[in-house]
């Protein structure tokens, strides 16, 4: 628990200053409307996808390929390009097996930087729009966010990681002779740089297949702390940046509080559920301890549930343990994190997701004070609600629609490694992870198939862009309205009561949309286990 507290407190404190710095970098970008901004946004993102796709498709002809990695299948290329363009980093491959260093650095790592910068830029534009100063230029945001925010912070983290023992080399695989006399190939590469941005930019795509459970990605206790803090740092800073740009710091503090509360509750629940012995031991006459299956003991016992919660709360998706092996109810916590997707959420986009929930809550509760609902003094009306509701619908559509389809179709149902509720959760988790742009895998799923690659690829693209574009359009519509003055007759957005409104709207919407699948998956598995 001390470890958890240290990580949360350190991140919260650092985020305050980083938020200040991010505002300083991004605030002076005015003029332009939402249309011009989104146009630039669209052009750049198409380029990102095209470049990523092209490099992956031709990696066998490109340099920096000491181990001679070969060609990838079309559907895997599509999935991977979509995955990294959308800041998801769902990986249906193992990095050290399939990717050349060139692909890792110039397709994947480049995309990790620019896709994260895209999210930060979109949030900055949204905040500027709501403050009435115009949306600014996307290119300017993009360059500032990548060069002046992500690059220096990632450099700092990479250096720290090198000190903890993470490799940073262009040398190829090393051959080692083990004590037993066997020959072992040890993969290595420029991992430290890759891991820094993977953690900071809520990317999560590991350099090696086992991600941050691999000893070269996350060698010890200290690297684990650095990487944990890196997961949550920028998403936290984004809330403060939103507050500073809109000039509503107290409002931002309320949002931060609600996100933090949900995060802490999830971590506590995960730790509690995971303290029970694994279900596999049920009914066996053996000494039982906390569930140790699928965990790296070098980080300590509380590190797994903490990381699992953090990484799914932030759309990061890196893992330091196998989520498939978590107790059923613990597994529900990462799922919940991705369903809500805004308990800090992805860089920039987490806060944008939050706006969707806030506007929904404001609309319903705002009427109860006897006025047309307002957010930051601007009236929330038909146009905004249309866009917000659409944005809200995308997530359940992708998750429930995809899951429903794959549970009945052979190309879905036959790829699961477990029957019944656990197998259902594997499918549910994969679509949830893709739709939340998270990228973590529940594993236990044979997911490098054309059906999975194409379905999750489409889900990632839709679930990435709709919840960015629609709220930006809503902000554009809001920003054209007059700001009404703040009186005792208006709903205040900087009170505990408003925090309750946001919390209620998140919990209600989340519960109403996902309660049935939560019951059928993890809850059912838990209850079945309890009956044994």
């Amino acid at each position, binding site marked *: 628990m001390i470890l958890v507290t240290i990580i949360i407190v350190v991140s919260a404190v650092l985020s305050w200053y980083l938020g200040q710095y991010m505002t300083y970098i991004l605030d002076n970008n005015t003029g332009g409307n939402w249309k011009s901004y989104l146009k630039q946004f669209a052009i750049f993102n198409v380029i990102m996808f095209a470049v990523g796709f092209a490099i992956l498709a031709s990696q066998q002809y490109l340099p920096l390929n000491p181990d001679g990695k070969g060609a990838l299948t079309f559907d895997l290329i599509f999935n991977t390009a979509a995955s990294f363009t959308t800041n998801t980093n769902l990986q249906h491959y193992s990095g050290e097996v399939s990717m050349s260093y060139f692909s890792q650095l110039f397709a994947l790592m480049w995309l990790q930087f620019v896709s994260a910068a895209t999210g930060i830029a979109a949030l900055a534009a949204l905040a500027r729009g709501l403050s009435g100063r115009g949306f600014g230029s996307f290119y300017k945001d993009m360059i500032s966010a990548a060069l002046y925010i992500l690059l220096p912070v990632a450099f700092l983290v990479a250096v720290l990681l090198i000190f903890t023992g993470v490799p940073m080399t262009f040398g190829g695989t090393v051959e080692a002779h083990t004590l037993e006399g066997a020959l072992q190939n040890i993969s290595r590469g420029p991992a430290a740089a890759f891991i820094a941005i993977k953690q900071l930019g809520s990317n999560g795509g590991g350099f090696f297949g086992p991600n941050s459970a691999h000893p070269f990605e996350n060698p010890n206790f200290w690297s684990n702390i650095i990487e944990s803090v890196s997961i949550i740092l920028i998403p936290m800073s984004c809330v403060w940046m939103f507050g500073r740009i809109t000039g509503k710091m107290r409002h931002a503090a309320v949002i931060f509080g609600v996100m933090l509360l949900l995060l802490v509750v999830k971590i506590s629940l995960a730790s509690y559920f995971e303290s029970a012995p694994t279900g596999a031991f049920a009914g066996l006459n053996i000494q039982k301890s906390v569930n140790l299956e699928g965990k790296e003991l070098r980080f300590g016992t509380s590190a797994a549930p903490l990381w699992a919660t953090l990484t799914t709360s932030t759309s990061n998706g890196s893992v330091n343990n196998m989520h498939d092996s978590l107790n059923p109810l613990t597994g529900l916590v990462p799922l919940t994190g991705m369903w809500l997707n805004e308990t800090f959420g992805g860089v920039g986009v987490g806060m944008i997701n939050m706006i969707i929930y806030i506007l929904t809550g404001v*609309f*319903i*509760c*705002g*009427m*109860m*004070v*006897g*006025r*047309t*609902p307002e957010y930051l003094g601007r009236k*929330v*009306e*038909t146009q*905004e*609600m*249309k866009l917000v*509701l*659409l944005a*809200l*619908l995308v997530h*359940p*559509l992708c998750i*429930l*629609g995809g*899951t*429903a*389809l794959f*549970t*009945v179709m052979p190309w879905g149902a036959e790829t699961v490694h477990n029957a*019944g*509720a656990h197998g*259902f959760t594997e499918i549910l988790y994969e679509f949830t992870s893709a739709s939340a742009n998270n990228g973590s895998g529940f594993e236990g799923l044979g997911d490098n198939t054309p059906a999975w690659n194409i379905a999750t690829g489409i889900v990632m693209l839709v679930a990435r862009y709709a919840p960015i574009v629609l709220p930006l359009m809503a902000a554009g519509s809001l920003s054209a309205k*007059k*700001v*009404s*003055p703040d*009186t*005792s*007759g*208006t*709903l*205040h957005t900087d*009170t505990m*009561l408003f925090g*309750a*409104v946001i919390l*209620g709207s998140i919990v*209600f919407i989340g*519960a*109403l*949309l996902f*309660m*049935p*699948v939560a*019951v*059928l998956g993890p809850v*059912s598995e838990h*209850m*079945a286990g309890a009956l044994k």
Partner: protein
Amino acid sequence: MTKTERREARSSAIFNKQSAVYAAVQSFKMLSPKVMIKSPVMFVTEMGAVLTTLSLLTVSADAYAVSVTVILWLTVLFANFAEALAEAKGKAGADSLKQVRRDTLCARITDGGSEQVSSSELKVGDRVFVDAGNIIPCDGEVDKGIASVDESAITGESAPVIRESGGDRTGVTAGTKVLTGGIEVVVTAGAGESFLDRMIALVEGAVRQKTPNELALTVTLSGLTLAFLLVTAALLPIGRYFGAELSIPTLTALLVCLIPTTISALLPAIGIAGMNRALAANILAKSGKAVELAGDIDTILLDKTGTITVGNRQAVQFVPVSGTSERELAETAMRASFGDTTPEGKSIVVLAENLLGRQAETPADASVINFSAHTRLSGVDSERQMLRKGAYDAVTAFVGQNGGKIPADLKEITDRIASSGCTPIVVAQDNEILGVVSLSDVLKAGIQSRFARLKAMGLRVIMVTGDNQLTAKAIADEAGVDGFVAEAKPEDKLNYIRKEQKGGRLIAMIGDGTNDAPALAQADIGVAMNSGTQAAKEAGNMVDLDNNPTKLIEVIEVGKQLLMTRGALTTFSVSNDVAKYFAIIPAMFVLAMPHLAGLNIMRLASPESAVLSALIFNAVVIPALIPLAIKGVRFRAMGADALLKRNLLIYGVGGVLLPFAGIKLIDMLLSAVGMF
């Protein structure tokens, strides 16, 4: 129909027999999909009912499936009933107005005479003569003459009112009756377009359009419905994966329980009831949008005279300048007020008579100078002398012209009187200023507490007055208003409204004169008094039938209540879903997965009774909440945050808990009668 009768008709018991029968018939007629599509949520419910009906015919028709189907149809009918009932109440109000509108013969003035025509033949610009005992056939402006008019048919007020040409009391309304005198009226609205006609149409809901907030709410509710449609539809294939074959009645029941049927069923009724409540307060709103907007108002512009103060100013004190005695001043003021018929002038004479102890005499060969807005002076001229009284600037200018001097202490005296909230009237004889009469205006009883109530609601009250700064400030402080516009000319109101609107404020004002028309049109809510000019009535978006200037406050409360009721019922509707999930989800899957029985936390008797109980609860909650929808959530004058906290506790937390009890109760009843 008297005013009290009408009020009773509008606010009496919600389920009276006549309107209930009308609504019951209407709720079947409204089953047509063309009508239902206006409310997407209820349309989905109806389609669900159709689907289960079809499944009865094709799949199976056991008692459970039949029950589900019946309850689904009942849900749709209940929703239609709620809307029709609210409409019926509006119709009752419209009928009383309709009785007033009937064809009458009238005398149209033609070149060199007049002809008898039916009121339905009148056109805009025609002139008609109406004399005592006749009904005024049209909306119009009095062009010649004066008459006392009985407007009780429109306003419910039995005391007659004076309508005369010129000034601000020229407007007459079709259906009112001339009691004494005779007037020539210029028709301003042709047959079928009169104020009354439009009001009837509005009240009957013939031209009812969805208001902006109603539209936004409909979009939101449709979005939620789409989400739940998705959740329910996904369960069918997912159920198969688990080996549970979900039936159409069960899935439809889950869908209808989850989608926000409660608020959608009551939404039209809430809107109609809002209009009706405005009507019950004797306010005719020209659109539902105006009533809704009233809730957003944050600044109210009120005239001082007649609204904040009683209006007839009384002389209370004579204050002479040094070198003049009080009796001397009283004597002069009395003579200067000869022939002054205003209440102020009369009160000066009365005060002087009391002080001097004798009756005023009629001066010989005097001519009266009447007050005009241009000179701002009144008085009496005789051969020997000129007597004047009036505002400080006007009288000092007059004395200056005659070569007189301004006494050194005059300014100090007028300022002192003004700062005490009284109006100083300077009295002069030829080139000499004798002193000042202090006119006091009394605040209306209870006005401070009304303003305190407004303040608690977050509203600002701005007082508009022709008085000078000092008087205005004193009255403003005493009444507790938040600001004032002093020495205001009619165009100042307009300018003030524009300035405030630029700052994002929404302004309401009330007015009656032609002067007020531009400001009424500019204001977000402009309430014209029914006694006012036609121009004012055209410019405003509401008309107050009672001619009561403080009516704005009621208008705003009606608007706020309307929005609060929508918000509260939406919250209630969504909160109910939690309990319904706990009833239905275990019931759906418990056959395929017996270990889920533990989730049946309400311990409902059987899967069938669980689904039916949730569905029955969902249906009966609609008629149960009709009274709340029609009466509106109780409004309290408190800040937004306090209101929200209160309503969240009642409708949010209450909305989560109540259905647990309700569903359990229905389940117990169902198993008690041995049905499921």
